[in-house]
Every structure is written in C-alpha cells, then in structure tokens.
C-alpha cells in the first residue's frame, strides 16, 4: 500500500541520501511560481518524478521493474491525491490516462496492428526512468564531492597578478603624411569655379583705344594699343590673351573708324595695320 504520505516520506529519504534534496532547498523562483507551488507542496517534480520514486520503491534494478505494478501504484497515487482533494496539475492526469492505456494494451491479447506495441512503450518508459534516475544519482554524486569553498580551499589571500601592459604605438612617417593628405582631400568643400578666361572684351578695347588715340597724333601700329601682358607666367595664357586683345582692339578700331574718331591704313596684306586719330588737318584723307 502506497499512499500519498508514504510517497512523501520516500521522497524525504532521497533527500537524506544527499543532504541536498530537501524541500527547504527549492529555488526561490520555484516558490514564487504559483503553478510550480502546486507541485512542490508534495515535493514532486512532475509525473515522471512520481513514477521514478514508485519504481525505486520496488527495490529492484530499474531494468527489472514491473511496469504493470508501476502503473497500478501510479493510478493509486492519483486516486489518493484526489480523495485528499489535492489539486493535481494536468500533466499528472495525462500521465494517468496514458498509463491506463498502456496497462490495457499490456493486458489485452496482442494486436500486431498497434504500432508501437505496448511492450515497446513500456520499454521506453522504463528507459526514460533509467535516464532520469541516472542524472539524479549523478547530481547527488557531484554534490557530494569535495567542493571548492566547502571542503577544499584555494589560497585565502592571494596577492593577485597584474600584467601592466604599456602600449607602444606604431605609426610611420608615410602613414602620417598620407593620412593628412586624405583628411584634406576628404574634407575640402566641393566648390566649382570657372577658370578666368584669357580674353579682352570689346568694351575694354573700345575704352582703351578711345583713351589712347587722343595722344597718338601720327600713324601708329595697332599693337601699340594692346595692353601689356603681365597677368601670368603661364605662356599659354599670355598667348591666348594677346590674341583676344588683338581681335578686340581691331574690332574697336573699326567701330571707332566708322564713328569718324580714327582712321586705319594697311599697305598690303599682312603688313602692319596703322591707326591714327582723325583731326581737322587730315579729315579729307580718309582712305
């Protein structure tokens, strides 16, 4: 006869074996979990736990336990719990139903259609009990070992070890200069500037020639009216500017000639182009 109370005692026996399995030792969070509390009131951890304790009660090797007897004891445990109005979680009842099924399968004549067979199921149950039992015993053996801080001690006041790493940094000259070049290139604002073009505008030429013509009484080469090129030491730039100045000055001269301010003369193709102001003296000599 195994009643709920007896089971409880058996459970305490296990606790005494290891000195560590008493209900006092339950984790804080287990107690704070109301559902776990339902189970832990009796010290059980689920139906397999109950089955394992019942199986060990048969006082034989787990491999030789009587599954039918085990089922009978479990169902009795459930009945007892119910009659004591102990609240049982669903998984206990599911296990009871499953064991009832297993029991009937084991008792009824063999039906080869059923897969897996009741015998196989029974074997698997027995294996699971063995596995859990093995871990339970392993845990107890672990806890019973000479443990650091309880039985074995490390040095009480070690001086401690320190490696003070003094870091030496490595960076060579090239990396330094390269980094600066890249910072500069990266961070410069992107600005597009139109390059100053080498030109002399017609307006500039008109005003320049108008001003200068008054001082030149005789014939002068048009080149005299060109600005002196000193803007840049870039030769290409100078050549370009000189061409532009010559073209503009020529245009300006034609314009001024049309207005009767000056007159132009060229003896032959590619000969120097001569300019002079129109005065009252030479008014009639327009060529």
């Amino acid at each position: 006869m195994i009643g709920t109370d007896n089971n409880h005692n058996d459970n305490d026996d296990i606790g005494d074996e290891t000195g560590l399995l008493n209900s006092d030792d339950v984790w804080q969070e287990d107690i704070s979990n109301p559902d776990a509390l339902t189970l832990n009131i009796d010290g059980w951890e689920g139906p397999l736990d109950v089955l394992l304790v019942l199986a060990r009660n048969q006082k034989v090797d787990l491999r030789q336990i009587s599954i039918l007897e085990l089922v009978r004891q479990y169902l009795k445990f459930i009945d007892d719990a119910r009659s004591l109005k102990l609240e049982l979680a669903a998984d206990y009842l599911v296990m009871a139903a499953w064991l009832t099924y297993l029991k009937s399968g084991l008792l009824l004549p063999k039906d080869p259609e059923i897969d897996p067979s009741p015998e196989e199921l029974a074997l698997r149950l027995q294996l699971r009990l063995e596995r859990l039992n093995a871990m339970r015993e392993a845990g107890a053996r672990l806890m019973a070992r000479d443990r650091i801080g309880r039985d074995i001690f490390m040095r009480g006041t070690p001086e401690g070890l320190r490696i003070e790493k003094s870091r030496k940094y490595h960076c060579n000259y090239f990396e330094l200069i390269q980094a600066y070049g890249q910072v500069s290139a990266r961070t410069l604002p992107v600005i597009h500037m139109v390059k100053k073009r080498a030109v002399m505008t017609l307006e500039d030429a008109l005003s320049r020639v108008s001003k200068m013509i008054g001082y030149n009484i005789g014939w002068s080469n048009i080149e005299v009216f060109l600005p002196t090129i000193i803007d840049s030491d870039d030769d290409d730039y100078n050549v370009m500017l000189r061409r532009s100045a010559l073209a503009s000055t020529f245009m300006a001269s034609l314009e001024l000639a049309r207005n009767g301010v000056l007159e132009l003369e060229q003896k032959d193709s590619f000969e120097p182009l001569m300019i002079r102001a129109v005065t009252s003296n030479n008014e009639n000599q327009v060529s």
Partner: protein
Amino acid sequence: MEHLRAVEATLFASEEPLRSKDITQYVGDEIDVDAALKTLEDHYQGRGIELVRRGDRWHFQTAADLAYLLRRESDELRKLSRAAIETLAIIAYHGPVSRAEIESIRAVQISKGMLDVLMQAEWIKSAGRREVPGRPLVYVITNEFLTHFGLSSRKDLPGIRDLKATGLLDPIDMVMDEMFAEANDAEENDSESESAVDDV
C-alpha cells in the same frame, strides 16, 4: 630551481587558476613552464597543499583529505534545489544540450531563472546554437565547474564511463520523442483550462 620558484610564486599569487601559457606571460619565454608544473606537482604530492590541474588550468588548493579540518558550511553551496542539481548534472553529462533536451530528460519544464542562476555561478555557459529548427542555444559546463567539483576534465565526471557504455547518455530515441511529444501536446491542450505549468 629559479624556474620552479618563479612558477610556484606566480601560481601561488594568482587569484584564479592559470593556464601554462598564462604563467609564461609572467615568468618569461625562457622557462619551460610545463616541466616546472610537473616537478611542482610531484613536490607537493602528499603535502597539505596540492598543485592540481582542472581542465587546462592549474592551481594550488588544500589537500582533499584535510577537508574534515577545514570544512565550512556555506549558504551559497546549500541552496541548490533538486531541479538545479539535476539540470546541472544533465548539462555536465549530456552537454552540449539545449533547454528542450534538458526538459525532455527531466520531463518537466525548467523554471525561468534556473539556467541564469547556473550561469551566474559560472558553472555552465552557452556554447553556440544547435543547427536545428529554432536554432536553440546549447549549454556546456565551464572550467569553473571542473575547478569547483575537483575534476581534471569532463571525462572524470563520476560514473560517466558506465553511463556511456549503457547508452544512457545517447541522444533521445526518436520514437520516444514522438511519444513524449504526443503526451505533451495533449497536456498543452489541457493546460489552457487546467494549469499554466505546461505552457511553453
């Protein structure tokens, strides 16, 4: 002799177990640390202090047989619940294991904080994920575990050889899984009305 002294002093001063290569950092390359450790191990044999190796780390500790003189009750060591002890044992013997695998062996759910507490005690650590659907984290025991329980390596776990030989550490049989999954499903359906414990 100077070599021995240097290795001895370094280990003695250290606050935690050291690997051979850690010691080299202190005593210098020119010393054969491994040879020195062997000599020291022999030297301390049978004394009140022992030089021991746990995993790949070495430390000095008091001799086990003197525990009766020195034993102290420590609250910290007593407060492990049966659930925690079993969980720790499963991780030690079956590791690397996932939470689901632990639960399947124990046939109950692990309370939320349990693995955290064991990790905080530095006895277990997570060791990557298992490449199965859901990619669960798997857990293994640590060097600190070996140190605490006085084990040179996982192979020294009490009885592990027998458990292996009898197949009790083998991966859970698929048919058994299925059987359990069915039972579990049934539980889950019931649990809406009955109990939240079964909720995953």
